[in-house]
């Protein structure tokens, strides 16, 4: 319509290097824009970036802190990546994460202090996955059966999940709630028996949480699942061309339900890992504030839905979060950390658009003209 506007045209040919160059270039662009913002607020950009690098990755114990921040993002990132790959927009990672935490902490408390650690930890892994999986199954089945919009249903279930967790700790005398000692005065969850605390693997200078290792293994497994198996093949067809999938004898609805459950299970595992590795207690307020489920969508987008890339992006974003804690202070408002994180996201997603489309000046093409309309 507009005669002098700009238009986005899909690129027909993607050069091989482009998918790699664009995220890197976008990241550098974000740093550049960030430098301008920092300069405007009277900070020395170079020294800020230096401190981020230092606090995220280099200094004593920094990388361990980064991995701790990265672990939940890794799981919720995989949750979003696997679902988005088939065009199932699961925004419910948040709720599935919480359900995983409820189920995982529940089984650990049930097994009690006498259970062997290996049993408790494995049970938490399994129950966390089941809790999240069931929560993910709901929007999956609703979509397959009634064609409801999964973005809405999965999002709504986030609120339900957090309300359930809040009820368990604040509004009832549930099994999860500490009813003795200080718990009588201040509502809080029971501390998990130490035997069920997830181990940390010690590599000398770096300590790697077991949850992170588990996440890496699962990322690798997902990669194999998607690239090498029959199920993965069907996932790829359903994701790109659902009509074709049906035509070729596949059952897209079944695949959607299966992937919805898988996606939820991954977030649920994240919830169990968060409790098992770090919190050791069901803490609804903490879960709600962290917003790992939504951050996972960002991780998956930056990783271009590639499960292996999710590991690296989770570490990168975990590092920035981790450094953010350290940067915060009287001379460095916490809002500025958010600005930097937002800029990185904005530039990378923007770069994604430029990688796929080229910008052209729209000339005087006939209004609404399309070659295919000629009939």
């Amino acid at each position, binding site marked *: 319509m507009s005669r002098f506007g700009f238009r986005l045209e899909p690129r027909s*040919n993607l050069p091989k290097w482009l998918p790699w160059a664009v995220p890197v270039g976008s990241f550098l662009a974000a740093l550049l824009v960030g430098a301008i913002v920092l300069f405007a607020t009277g900070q020395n950009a170079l020294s800020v970036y230096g401190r981020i690098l230092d606090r995220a990755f280099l200094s004593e114990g920094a990388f361990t802190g980064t991995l701790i921040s990265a672990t939940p993002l890794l799981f919720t990132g995989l949750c979003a990546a696997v679902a988005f790959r088939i065009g199932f927009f699961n925004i419910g990672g948040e709720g599935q994460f919480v359900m995983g935490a409820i189920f995982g902490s529940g089984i650990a408390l049930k097994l009690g202090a006498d259970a062997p650690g290996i049993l408790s930890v494995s049970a938490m892994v399994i129950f966390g996955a089941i809790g999240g999986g069931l929560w993910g199954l709901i929007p999956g089945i609703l979509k397959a059966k009634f064609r409801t919009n999964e973005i809405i249903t999965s999002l709504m279930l986030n609120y339900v999940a957090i309300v359930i967790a809040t009820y368990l700790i604040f509004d009832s005398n549930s099994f999860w709630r500490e009813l003795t000692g200080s718990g009588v005065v201040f509502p809080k969850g029971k501390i998990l028996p130490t035997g069920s605390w997830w181990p940390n693997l010690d590599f000398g200078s770096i300590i790697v949480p077991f949850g992170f290792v588990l996440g890496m293994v699962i990322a690798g497994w997902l990669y194999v699942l998607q690239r090498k198996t029959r199920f993965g093949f069907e996932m790829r067809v359903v994701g790109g061309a659902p*009509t074709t999938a049906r035509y070729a004898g596949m059952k897209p609805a079944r695949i959607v339900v299966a992937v919805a459950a898988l996606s939820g299970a991954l977030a649920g595992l994240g919830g169990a890992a968060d409790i098992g590795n770090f919190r050791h207690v069901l803490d609804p307020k903490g879960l709600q504030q962290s917003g790992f489920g939504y951050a996972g969508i960002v991780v998956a987008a930056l990783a271009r839905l590639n499960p292996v890339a999710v590991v690296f992006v989770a570490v990168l974003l975990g590092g920035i979060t981790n450094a953010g804690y350290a940067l915060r202070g009287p001379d460095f408002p916490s809002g500025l950390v958010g600005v930097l994180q937002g800029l990185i996201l904005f530039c990378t997603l923007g770069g994604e658009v430029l990688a796929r489309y080229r910008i052209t000046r729209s000339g005087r093409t006939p*209004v609404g003209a399309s070659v295919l309309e*000629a009939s």
Partner: protein
Amino acid sequence: MKAATAPAVAAFHVTKKFPGVIANEDVTFDVRVGEVHALLGENGAGKTTLSNILTGLYRPDEGWMEVAGIAVDFQSPRDAIAAGIGMVHQHFRLIPTFSVAENIALGTGHDPVGGRFDLKKIEERVAEISESFDLPVDPRAKIWQLSVGEQQRVEIIKVLYRDARVLIFDEPTAVLSPLESERLGVTLQTMARSGRSIVFISHKLGEVASIADRVTVLRHGRSVETTSENDVSALASLMVGRDVESVTRSAHAIVESSSRVGSVVLEIEELHAVGDRGLKALDGVSLTVRSGEIVGVAGVAGNGQRELVEILAGLRRKGSGSIRVDGESLENGSTRHPIRLGVSYVPQDRMGTGLAPDLTIAENMALKNFRRPPFARPPFIRQSVIDAQGRDLMEQFDVRAPSETTPTRRLSGGNVQKVLLAREMSGDPRVLVIASPSQGLDVGAVATVHQLLIDAAESGVGVLLVSEDLDEVLALSNRIAVMYEGRILDTFDRADADAQRIGLLMGGQLDVSA
């Protein structure tokens, strides 16, 4: 009567080209005040392009237009509306949650009745128009509450509300039941008598002959003739534009081989089905295909061909009636069952239904057999075997692409069709169902695809060829069935094929003397 009056709208020597296609070439056409003027032609004859030019959607590359004798140059649809030309689209442009009156007022920019948005006055005016043209509709009803026929009335009132003097109807009866169509015909004539001019786009001969005062026939983008003829067989010849000689000349492409025709592989009996809109789409189709023969289904698009092939592929549920492949009955509601019975299907929507555009050529070729060994070692797929099959088939079917790992979305139309045929032929099918095989392909690719179909028949496959291109059907088929409004009106052996009679049948005329 008023021969001296300038035509309401006229186009002179209009040419419109799109990359690779000449949609209109030297089209001349005029509509008098007070007449119903039909544009008749097969699919792709240029009817829609011409109406898009008349309504300002496209600008002609060459030629000019006049409205009431004054030359005009429409820059946009707005200009055409201002000049009093309105279009009733085949696909409605209405907002379901708005009322009838709101939809009609929408986009008028200002309210011609009161100067501000006075819904009451708009509703009154709508009711007035609705009454004077016998287009009953409640101005306060919401669009989603209305039937398709009522929605069309809203579209018509919308155009009348803007005080259009020339109304263009694009295949208006396509969405209507026979009774509604008849009623619409009366409405069109009433509007013409009230001094408006009607352009009526259609391919249904009977309707055109009974409703239109004059007919302009378009063929391959050219205006062939304007006539006040209302003899359907004369119109059919003009529309199809071939005689029996040219048929036999093009038919030499087929191998003379009734000997290779074997047993019945596909048997359709009394098949009924409803279409997407819930209207009857198939109304008792019976058809057999024997091994080694090509059976062509001719007909204008939208007469049930899509529903027929989709049922055969398992993509759509059938109503009553039976389908047997090699004697075995085809179940409803599964796309795997036809594949298992050996029904191959090359859809018309090749990219959207036949292929996964982001997957590689090799993967697309394995789309129907990747589950079984040697392509899978459950639960894994064997990429190397899939790729090897891709390379073999690419060579065998002469697919031109950098490699078997090229995504199919990068392929040209001809190569896309070759990939599909390669996959569908590689599974040793009993029946090959193919819809509009050469649509959108260049001449060279068309020849290749036709040769592949002949090869398929020679190898003993029963081919069901569904095409809107009559030339193609005549050139390839051993037998030809003509489909109209969900029925097979007649079936011919190629030797007895009479293009004029086929043209009549395509337009729904059973009786030549009609």
